[in-house]
C-alpha cells in the first residue's frame, strides 16, 4: 500500500515588543501568554513524545523578532516574575475556593505555572534551546522567517528592502542556532514572482505559499497542492492544503469550538473583585486576561456568565477524539489522492503556533494524541520539507502566483484605507537609508556607524507586518500606530543628527537599548554595491 506524507508546519512569530524601562507592558503580555500557554506546553509535549519514542516531525519557523525576545533577559525576567505572581494568585484561589472542583482547578493552574517556571530554568531562560534540542534529535526542522516579518509583496519595488529582510532573517537564525536555515517562512505567506531569486541568493531552499499560489501559477500544477514545485531559480515551494486548515478552523465544524474545551473569554482577570485582582492585571488598572480560566465553552450559545466549570479529564478526552477524527480524515484524503495521482501525496498543514495552547488550550494535547495514534498506522508518514525534497525525483517547474494567506488571498489586509498612510513613510525612509548607506559606505567613525546601524534597526522594526495588520483588525490600533510613528521618528531624528554632525549620544544609547534587535547588523546591507560575502 502506498503512503502519503503529512507536513505539520507551525509558524511562530510575535512582533518585537520590548519596553525595558517600564513594568510589564500591556503588549508585552502577548509574549508572556505565548510562552506560558503555547511555546512551553508544546515543547513539553515534544519531550513526552520523544520519551515515548513516538515518531513525529514538525516544521517550526521561529521569526527573528521572537528569537531576539528569547535572548532578551529583561523580558525573560518579566515572564518569570509574572508566572510567580500567578502561582501566588493560585494559592489565594485555593484558600478561597468554595468547592473541591474549584480548588482542584486552582491547583491545576498552580502546578502548571510551576512546571513552566521549571522548564524555563532548565533551558537557562532561552526557549531557543528547547527548540534546538528537538531539531538536533531530528524530529523538528527549524526554519527562519524574513527579518521583522515585513510583508514582502509591498516592498518589491524597492528590492534592496526585500534583500535585507531575507538576509537578516537568515543571519538571525544562524546567530541563534549556529547553522543555516534551509527554509524560510515568508511573512503572511506573502509571495511575488521573482522573490525566489532573493531566497536563492541567501541559500534558502524552500518556502511556503497558500493554495491559490499554485492554482493560479503560470502553468497548472499537475499534483495540485500535493507535491512541492520548483521555481525557475531552483527554490522549492510548498502549498497549503485547504482541507486540513478547514477541518481545524471551520466555524461550524472546527474542533476548538467543542463544549468540553476551555472557554477563552472567561478569565479571572474579569471575574474577580477589583481590589483582589488588581495586583495581577495591567498596571494602569485596566482589567486584562490573567490566564486562569475555570470554565468550559459548555455550548456556543451559553452566555459567558452561564458557562459551566472546566473538567480537564473531559477536555482531554475531546482532544483525543478530535485527534482520531483528524487522523481518519487525513487517511481518507491520502487514499483519495493516491487514487487520483497514483503517487504518494504530500499534505502541508501550516498553522500559527499560538493556535495551539493560547487560543485552543488543549491544542498541544490534540497534536500529541494525533502523533500517538498516527504512529500505529502505516498509511500516513510524517516528514520535514527537506526530507520530502530528498524523497522525490520529479518536480514540476512553476512560478507561483502573487498571493498571501491573508483575508481574500492577496494584499488587502496590509494595504487598505486604514493603514495605507504608512507607505509614504516606509518608502521614503528606505530610499534615504539606501542613499546614506552608499554615502557613508567607507565611514570609520564608530559613533556614526552606530547611528547608521540603529537607523537600519528602526527601519526594520517599522516594516513589521503586525502594525498594518492590527490597524486593519482594529484592536490595539493606538499601539500599532504609535510603534510605526516612533520608529520612523527615531529614524528621521538620527538621520538629522548624523547629517548635521550633531549626534546626541544619550538619545542614541536610549533607542539602542529599547530597539535592541540584531546587534550585529550592518547598515551597508542597504547599499546597492553590497554583495553577500562568501563564508
Amino acid at each position, binding site marked *: 500500500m502506498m503512503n502519503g506524507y503529512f507536513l505539520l508546519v507551525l509558524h511562530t512569530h510575535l512582533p518585537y515588543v520590548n519596553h525595558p524601562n517600564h513594568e510589564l507592558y500591556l503588549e508585552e503580555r502577548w509574549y508572556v501568554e505565548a510562552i506560558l500557554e503555547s511555546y512551553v506546553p508544546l515543547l513539553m509535549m515534544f519531550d513526552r513524545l520523544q520519551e515515548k519514542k513516538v515518531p513525529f516531525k514538525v516544521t517550526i519557523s521561529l521569526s527573528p523578532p521572537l528569537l531576539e525576545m528569547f535572548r532578551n533577559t529583561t523580558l525573560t525576567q518579566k515572564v518569570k516574575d509574572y508566572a510567580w505572581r500567578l502561582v501566588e494568585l493560585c494559592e489565594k484561589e485555593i484558600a478561597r475556593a468554595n468547592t473541591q472542583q474549584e480548588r482542584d482547578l486552582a491547583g491545576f493552574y498552580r502546578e502548571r505555572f510551576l512546571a513552566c517556571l521549571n522548564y524555563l530554568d532548565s533551558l537557562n531562560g532561552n526557549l531557543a534551546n528547547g527548540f534546538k534540542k528537538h531539531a538536533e534529535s531530528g524530529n523538528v526542522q527549524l526554519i527562519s522567517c524574513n527579518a521583522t516579518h515585513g510583508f514582502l509583496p509591498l516592498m518589491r519595488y524597492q528590492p534592496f528592502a526585500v534583500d535585507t529582510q531575507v538576509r537578516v532573517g537568515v543571519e538571525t537564525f544562524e546567530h541563534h542556532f549556529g547553522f543555516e536555515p534551509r527554509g524560510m517562512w515568508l511573512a503572511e505567506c506573502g509571495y511575488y514572482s521573482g522573490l525566489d531569486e532573493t531566497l536563492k541568493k541567501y541559500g534558502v531552499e524552500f518556502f511556503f505559499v497558500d493554495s491559490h499560489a499554485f492554482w493560479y501559477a503560470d*502553468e*497548472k500544477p499537475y499534483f495540485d497542492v500535493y507535491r512541492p514545485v520548483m521555481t525557475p531559480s531552483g527554490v522549492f515551494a510548498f502549498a497549503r492544503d485547504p482541507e486540513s486548515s478547514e477541518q481545524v478552523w471551520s466555524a461550524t465544524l472546527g474542533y476548538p469550538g467543542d463544549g468540553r474545551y476551555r472557554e477563552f473569554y472567561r478569565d479571572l482577570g474579569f471575574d474577580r473583585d477589583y481590589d483582589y485582582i488588581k495586583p495581577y492585571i495591567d498596571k494602569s488598572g485596566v482589567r486584562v486576561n490573567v490566564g486562569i480560566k475555570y470554565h468550559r465553552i459548555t455550548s456556543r450559545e451559553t452566555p459567558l456568565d452561564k458557562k459551566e466549570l472546566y473538567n480537564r479529564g473531559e477536555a482531554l478526552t475531546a482532544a483525543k477524539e478530535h485527534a482520531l477524527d483528524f487522523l481518519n480524515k487525513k487517511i481518507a484524503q491520502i487514499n483519495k489522492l493516491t487514487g487520483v495521482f497514483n503517487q504518494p501525496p504530500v499534505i502541508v498543514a501550516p498553522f500559527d503556533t499560538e493556535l495551539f495552547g493560547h487560543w485552543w488550550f488543549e491544542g498541544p494535547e490534540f497534536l500529541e494524541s494525533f502523533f500517538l495514534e498516527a504512529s500505529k498506522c502505516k498509511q500516513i508518514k510524517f516528514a520535514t520539507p527537506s526530507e520530502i525534497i530528498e524523497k522525490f525525483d*520529479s518536480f514540476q*517547474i512553476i512560478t507561483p502566483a502573487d498571493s498571501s494567506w491573508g483575508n481574500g488571498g492577496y494584499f*488587502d489586509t496590509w494595504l*487598505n484605507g486604514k493603514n495605507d498612510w504608512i*507607505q509614504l*513613510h516606509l518608502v521614503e525612509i528606505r*530610499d534615504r537609508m539606501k542613499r546614506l548607506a552608499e554615502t557613508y559606505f567607507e565611514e570609520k567613525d564608530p559613533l556614526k556607524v552606530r547611528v547608521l546601524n540603529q537607523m537600519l534597526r528602526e527601519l526594520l522594526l517599522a516594516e513589521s507586518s503586525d502594525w498594518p495588520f492590527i490597524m486593519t483588525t482594529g484592536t490595539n490600533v493606538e499601539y500599532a500606530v504609535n510603534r510605526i*510613528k516612533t520608529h520612523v521618528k527615531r529614524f528621521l531624528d538620527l538621520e538629522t543628527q548624523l547629517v548635521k554632525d550633531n549626534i546626541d549620544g544619550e538619545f542614541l544609547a536610549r533607542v539602542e537599548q529599547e530597539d535592541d534587535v540584531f546587534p550585529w547588523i550592518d547598515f551597508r546591507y542597504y547599499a546597492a554595491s553590497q554583495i553577500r560575502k562568501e563564508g
Partner: protein
Amino acid sequence: MTREELEVFLSKNPTIQEAKALARRLSLKVKKRMKKNEVLKLLQDFAKSLVSEKKEEEVRHTREARENELPQSYGSDRLVLFPVNPNLVYVYWDLSSETLSKLSGQKEVVLRLYDVTYVVFDGTNAHRIFEAGVHLAMTRNYYFHVPMANADYLAELGFKVEGKFVPVLRSNVARTPSNAPSASVRQRWVIKAKRVVKIGEPPLKPIERIRGSSQLESGR
C-alpha cells in the same frame, strides 16, 4: 470593559437578567431586590466613573502622538503604485513644492492609469487608459478598481490643457496578481535532474472560493 463597550451594552436595552449578570461580572454591588432601573443606574454610574481614566489615557496618548508627529510630506516628487488584489491598485504621491505649485496653478489636475501589459510604454501605446480627476488639496492617494488581473499598470499624475494631457510624474509599473488557473497546458518538469516538457491537464480541479462572495442576508 471600556466605557464605550458599556454604553453600547446599555443602549441595547438589556433585560434585567443581562444587566445584573454584567454588573456582577464588573464586581458591582447588586442586590437581589434591585429593579431594572436601579441596576441600569448602577451600570451608568460605573460607566461615568470610567471617564476620568479614559481622559488620562487620552492626554497621555495625545502627548505621545504630538511628540511622534511625522512629516505630512517629504517633498520627494514620487508617484508610487501598488497592486492590492487582482482588481484593485493603490497609488499615492508625495510632491516637491515646485511640482505642487506647478500643478496647483492648473484648472484640471488628473491622475491616469495605463494598462501597459507586455508593452514598453512610450506615453502613447497603452492598451487602455483610465482617468480620474484629482483635488490636490483634498487627497494624496487613489484606489483604482481595475478590470484585469495579471496585468501591468502604470500611473501618471499631470494636468489637462485644452483637452491635452501633460504628465508631470510617472509611477513604477505594478502587476496585478492572477486570479485564475493558467490557460496553458504546458508542464515543465525536472525528472531525475533532467528537464522535460510535457503537455496535458492535471487530473484534479481545484475547488476555489471567489473573493467578495457572500450569502445575502435577505435570502435566509
